[in-house]
């Protein structure tokens, strides 16, 4: 058990723990904050995967924008914030069952897969993932089209969100 594995396990446990809190805590603001810590854990996981760019974007986009947005939403829909009644709907057990079975199924499938135990090859020296990513995102040979489509999607979402949430009065 090398140091990296220890680090990974710590991170994974932290992430899963806070993820569990996200779906179980009664106080929604806490849930959102737990989500933040989950996202942090995921970001660390990215860094463990040498995907520093993803990690930072994770922090910027998720924590800087999405989590904040959640907190806003929770506070704007104040009525259910302080938790009258249960936070779980009445057939939550079935949901839990399904979740567990899904996990079991996935685990089972993974068991059957051979490439599972493969370990990462060292990143070649002088290979800058960020530069590569940037060039591929905007090179017509690679992913410029999905990139543009994503941008269009974002604009559409922006307009739609403003329109939907706009208080027509």
């Amino acid at each position: 058990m090398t140091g990296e594995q220890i680090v990974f396990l710590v991170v994974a446990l932290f992430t899963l723990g806070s993820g569990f809190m996200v779906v179980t805590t009664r106080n929604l603001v806490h849930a959102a904050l737990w989500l933040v810590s989950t996202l942090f854990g995921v970001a660390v996981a990215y860094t463990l995967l040498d995907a520093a760019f993803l990690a930072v974007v994770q922090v910027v986009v998720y924590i800087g924008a999405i989590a904040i947005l959640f907190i806003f939403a929770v506070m704007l829909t104040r009525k259910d914030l302080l938790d009258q009644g249960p936070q779980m709907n009445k057939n939550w057990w079935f949901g839990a069952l399904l979740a567990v079975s899904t996990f079991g199924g996935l685990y089972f499938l993974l068991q059957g897969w051979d490439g599972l135990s493969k370990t990462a090859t060292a990143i070649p020296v002088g290979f800058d993932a960020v530069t590569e990513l940037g060039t591929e995102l905007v090179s017509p040979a690679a992913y410029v089209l999905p990139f543009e489509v994503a941008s269009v999607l974002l604009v559409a979402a922006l307009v739609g969100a403003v329109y939907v949430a706009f208080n027509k009065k």
Partner: protein
Amino acid sequence: MTTETLIWLIPLPPALAFFLIVLLTNKSKALSHSVGVGAAILSWLASMVVFVRALGVEHLGEEPFASSINWLPTGSTWLKIGVLIDPLGAAVLFFVSITIFMIFLYSVGYHNFGQPAGDHDRKGLPPHGATIEEHGHKHMVPSVEPMYSRFFAFLALFAFGMYVLVVSDNLLTMFVGWEIMGLCSYLLIGFWYGKESARNAAIKAFMTTRIGDVFMLLGIAFLYSATGTLTFREIFREETLHALASVPSFWGFSTAGMIALLLFIGTVGKSAQFPLHVWLPDAMEGPTPVSAMIHAATMVSAGVYAVIRMFPLLSLDPQTMSIVAFIGAFTALFAATIAVAQNDIKRVLAYSTISQLGFMIAALGVGAYIAAVFHLITHAFFKALLFLGSGSVIHGMEHGVLHTGNHNVDPQDMFNMGGLKNKMPITFWTFLIGGFALSGFPIITAGFWSKDEIFADAFANGHIVVFITLATAAFLTAFYTMRQITLTFLGEPRTKEAEHAQETPWTMTAPLVILAFFAVTYGWVGIPEHFPVLGGLVPNWFHEFVGGTLAEHPEAVEFSWVPLLTSLGVALGGLFFGWFVYRNVNSPAEDKLQIPVLRNKWYFDEIYDFLFVKPATWFAEIFVYKWMDKGLIDGVLHSFGPVTQGLGSVIRNYIDLPVINRFFGDGSADVTYWFGGKLRAVQTGRVQHYLMFALVTFVVIGAVLVAFGLLA
């Protein structure tokens, strides 16, 4: 910019001008004509640059300016289109651009730009003049053309077609330009579509030229199937020509001869040679700039230009050559005879055009390549000059008509004129120069040199018949030209209108002067070396330059006195008689030469009417319409109706309603309804439930797959 690029660009401005005027500026007259004239100027400048650069090139014939691009993929290879400027092209481009420019300029004045709109002018009719109030008393002035912008649009399109035809390096684009011009001539001749005569003339011109074009298209197709290319320089390669000449085709013609003949028929239609000449005189219905455009600068020249282009092909087959020569000579003579008896100033010019074209064709027929080109160009200049001059005359007369207000005086009838010399001096002098050039007045005029060269070649190549015919035609030419001048300008005014005729604005006279300049000087570039006294004073530049186009440079024929004396004789004699006979003829009655057969143009229209038009009408109206259509086909069709109806009702009552509607239609609806009623409970409207259903399905399917070992 490389010359090739420039050549590519030459046809562009008129095309753009066309679209600009049609789409945008057609509301504003000033804008429209500035766009049109601007385009003409641009093309003219470009052409001049190209021309000058062409002069700079040694052996332009061997390596001309040419560039081409792939256009249509034809199987493995490409159909190439491109531009080509060789000596011939350069020379033609030179006069074409100038004349087109002149005509644009002239049209501004001709359509009375700047004058008030007419009192009761309607679109499709010539302007009738406008009344204006000037210090007290009213009087009529010419009124501006109602469809001014449209005219410039058509003109621009026409110019585009011509430029395309001249610069194109292959038969295909050449034919495209050719057809564009055909369309435009139709539009322009029928420009005043309010006049029935104009309508008919337009249709006549279109139809007649179309006959020729069909044959030409056949020729092109034949050529393509025979050689697999339409590019001139590839066709005119030695081996290609040899192959074409050696392979025989129908009726004893060689393939080359056949193709050349078919293409030549196209020319016959386009430049109004003998059997298909009838449309051209009627084309006078169009506005005068159109006449000049069609009859001097572009279309008819285009016809001849096409034959000249095809000369290497043509010259392969003596049979074809002789046919060409015969048709040319005959046309020359017979058109001249008609011209003698016409009274309409423009019709005279029209027939003289036909006859002059005949000269060129005949020249080609006898193998006088350079002479043909030379005459083509000189003729373009002085004929444009003459037409514009006549237009100017008519304009002046119209002014007189407006003044007197007597509208049943025909301003185009020469017997209504006379004595205009003093009223319209510029027009008179330029017209005189043009007329002398036309009739080949010795030494100074361009016409003399080109015609003389034709005579010389015809004589030297031993086509005596052609030579005599042409000589006679030339005599008649001089004769009717002088007749025209005498009746129009000399003597005393025969009508009050003629007294009140007045000189036309500078936009109309300036082109006259410029063209007159060329009509005189252009002849001097082609003086044969062996000519007595003058020969060799100026080098025979034209011969050298244009001769370079052909593979083997044609050597100048050796000098002989016979043709020279002949041309001198016919020219001077004709002029003298023309003046002598008509110096005091004042009405058609006194005109001895007004014999019916000539006045009625040898009854050609009537013959064609009897031979083709009447049968066609009968076939269309009686046979096809009454018998075939109404009788046979309609009968059959009408019988269909009831049968179908009966069938339909049977099907409806016994199949459609019971089986389809009741059973399938309603039945399926009922079943669906029933199921829906049972299943709707599933739709709880709660998103989480839906997700659960989906997941359960997913898990179940996965489990099944795994259970049957289909997975993992």
